[in-house]
């Protein structure tokens, strides 16, 4: 036959997170329509990848405005296959809307982390104005562009600020994604009362090339920070442990594995070798019957 098969496509998809996401979108388009949660998990994984990508070259984005940065995220999301756009229709001017066939929506608001109140403003717009409140748009995101170093610490601060502004906010455990500092917040929609979950993404855009003096000063500050960080990461670590438990439960019940692409690579390799192994068993069975192999016949004649 010699054609590229579905199996070949899956192998190709397993070689990178990007290919995996695109392949999933191909499947959705060809008829394997996802439920809302699968849509959200895929969008959020894609967002994490896009944010990390922005963070690989912070020097390039040093002078970019909020809108320019978001535009880059949108372009990347489109490259993964999502219908992502700057939206002007959903209740107001939302920074990014990712939509699937007009049924599912994931809304995001983007802010440069200049101050807590600035980011809070963006969050409020998203939570109270933009999110429609129905079950198929009940998830969204905050894209927080962090120009200062240590995004994990910044996100801890941001979460603390949120709590102080609204003690009724809940911070549920959610899917672990490959991005530092991620957390989830949940509130009830002012429109419908339904639960709305927002994933908070920190985009690491710190660019500060260090001189010798700066390095020494930084070291001092770093040790101080390290102590604070230790306490904070302990908190996050226990949360992560709890999250992991729920996440692994979620994984078990979900149809498609989206988490931890690195382990997925190895896992797919293992499955592939297992398949070859089970095929070996299958071909062994067939081998009890005759197997016609041209070259073997040629060998025989050659041996003769």
């Amino acid at each position, binding site marked *: *036959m*010699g054609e590229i098969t579905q199996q070949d496509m899956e192998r190709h998809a397993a070689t990178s997170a990007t290919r995996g996401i695109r392949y999933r979108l191909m499947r959705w388009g060809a008829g394997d329509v996802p439920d809302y949660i699968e849509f959200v998990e895929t969008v959020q994984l894609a967002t994490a990848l896009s944010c990390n990508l922005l963070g690989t070259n912070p020097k390039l984005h040093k002078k970019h405005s909020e809108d320019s940065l978001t535009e880059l995220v949108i372009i990347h999301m489109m490259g993964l296959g999502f219908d992502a756009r700057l939206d002007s229709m959903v209740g107001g001017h939302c920074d990014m809307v990712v939509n699937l066939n007009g049924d599912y929506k994931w809304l995001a608001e983007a802010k440069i982390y200049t101050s807590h109140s600035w980011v809070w403003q963006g969050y409020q717009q998203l939570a109270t104005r933009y999110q429609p409140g129905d079950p198929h748009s009940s998830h969204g995101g905050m894209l927080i562009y962090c120009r200062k170093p240590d995004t994990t610490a910044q996100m801890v601060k941001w979460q603390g600020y949120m709590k102080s502004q609204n003690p009724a906010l809940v911070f549920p455990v959610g899917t672990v994604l490959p991005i530092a500092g991620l957390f989830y917040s949940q509130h009830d929609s002012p429109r419908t009362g339904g639960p709305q979950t927002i994933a908070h993404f920190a985009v690491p855009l710190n660019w500060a090339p260090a001189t010798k003096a700066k390095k020494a000063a930084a070291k001092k500050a770093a040790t101080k920070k390290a102590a604070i960080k230790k306490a904070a990461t302990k908190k996050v670590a226990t949360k992560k442990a709890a999250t992991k438990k729920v996440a692994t439960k979620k994984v078990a019940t979900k149809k498609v594995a989206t988490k931890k692409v690195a382990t997925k690579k190895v896992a797919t390799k293992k499955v592939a070798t297992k398949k*070859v192994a089970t*095929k*070996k068993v*299958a*071909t062994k069975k*067939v081998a009890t*019957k*005759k*197997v*016609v*192999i041209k*070259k073997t016949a040629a060998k025989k004649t050659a041996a003769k």
Partner: protein
Amino acid sequence: MKVETMIALLRARAPWRSVARIGLKELGLPVGMGWDDTVPDLLAPNALNAKQMIDLDGTVLEHLIVGEKSLRIYDVGRQAIDALTATMSKKKASPHPVVTGFPSVLSDAAMKQLGDVPPQFGRYVPSSRGSALVYAGVRSYTRRIELNPNAIKAVLPSMDFDSVIGVVNHRRMTYDAVWLPKSGKYLYVLADYPQDATSDFPAQSHLALERSLTKSMGVQLVPVDLFPAVQGLYDAPDGDVVELGFITDDDSVKHLKARQGKKCLRKDGYHTAGATFVGNALLPFRLAVRWQRKLNSGLIVQPEVLLPGTSRTIYGLNNHLYDCVLRNCLGLRDLELIKSKLSPHI
């Protein structure tokens, strides 16, 4: 017949998507995705009411007669057919063990014990349009299965194969039939011809039945030449041409196959353009045509006939074609349909 037997016969003999599934649905029976999904519901207690049991029995019996067959037509005359019908209606089934529990699906072990068995008379089946004589037998044949070259590579890493074919010796029961219509001068011999068998499979049944009929009727049976039907059916206005082998004006041989669900090859762009270009001087030698037959429920059966001529049939001295292949037939009505399409041309 027991439900288990009827299901086993359909499962072994009827193509799932185009025949079995439709036949079951037509009787109002539950149908899932594939046999594994369907059989448990059919075997559940009281899954079939009394009428469905009778109807399924009829469906299975008719499929034994017409399903996946190589057809030969013989001009024997009305009198001979009537005489044979009268004789066979009183004939007892053969005492051969292959006929025990007719109709049935014998296990591999049972078949191995019996070895190859030529067609043995099993049952006389009357119907409103004619009668069928059904014969049971056992035949071994080789099946070709395409294996995954990558899997073989794991066993023979030094070799690089583009494709690997496995040859499997297979034994299965055959159900051959002779159809004796109530009118007309032709009788029809339908030899079992499974989809995955090689083209020589039905020959043994044809030979055996021809001999047996010659003996019973006292006349030498000569099959009718079906080759004129190739051009005839190609030129006919109805049916979809799904396979076409032809010779062009400049002597090149072409072979086209249409995918399932696609339109008729007569209207195929590539083919039509070619036909226009060479001034319609196309000589078809191999043709498969598919028709649509609507059932009471609105479901559609698509019986198909293949006239498997070769390019040699056009050129050779022996330009005759005695066999045609019936595919996707559900019951006697499909045989009637194909009969009616072939008769104007033979």
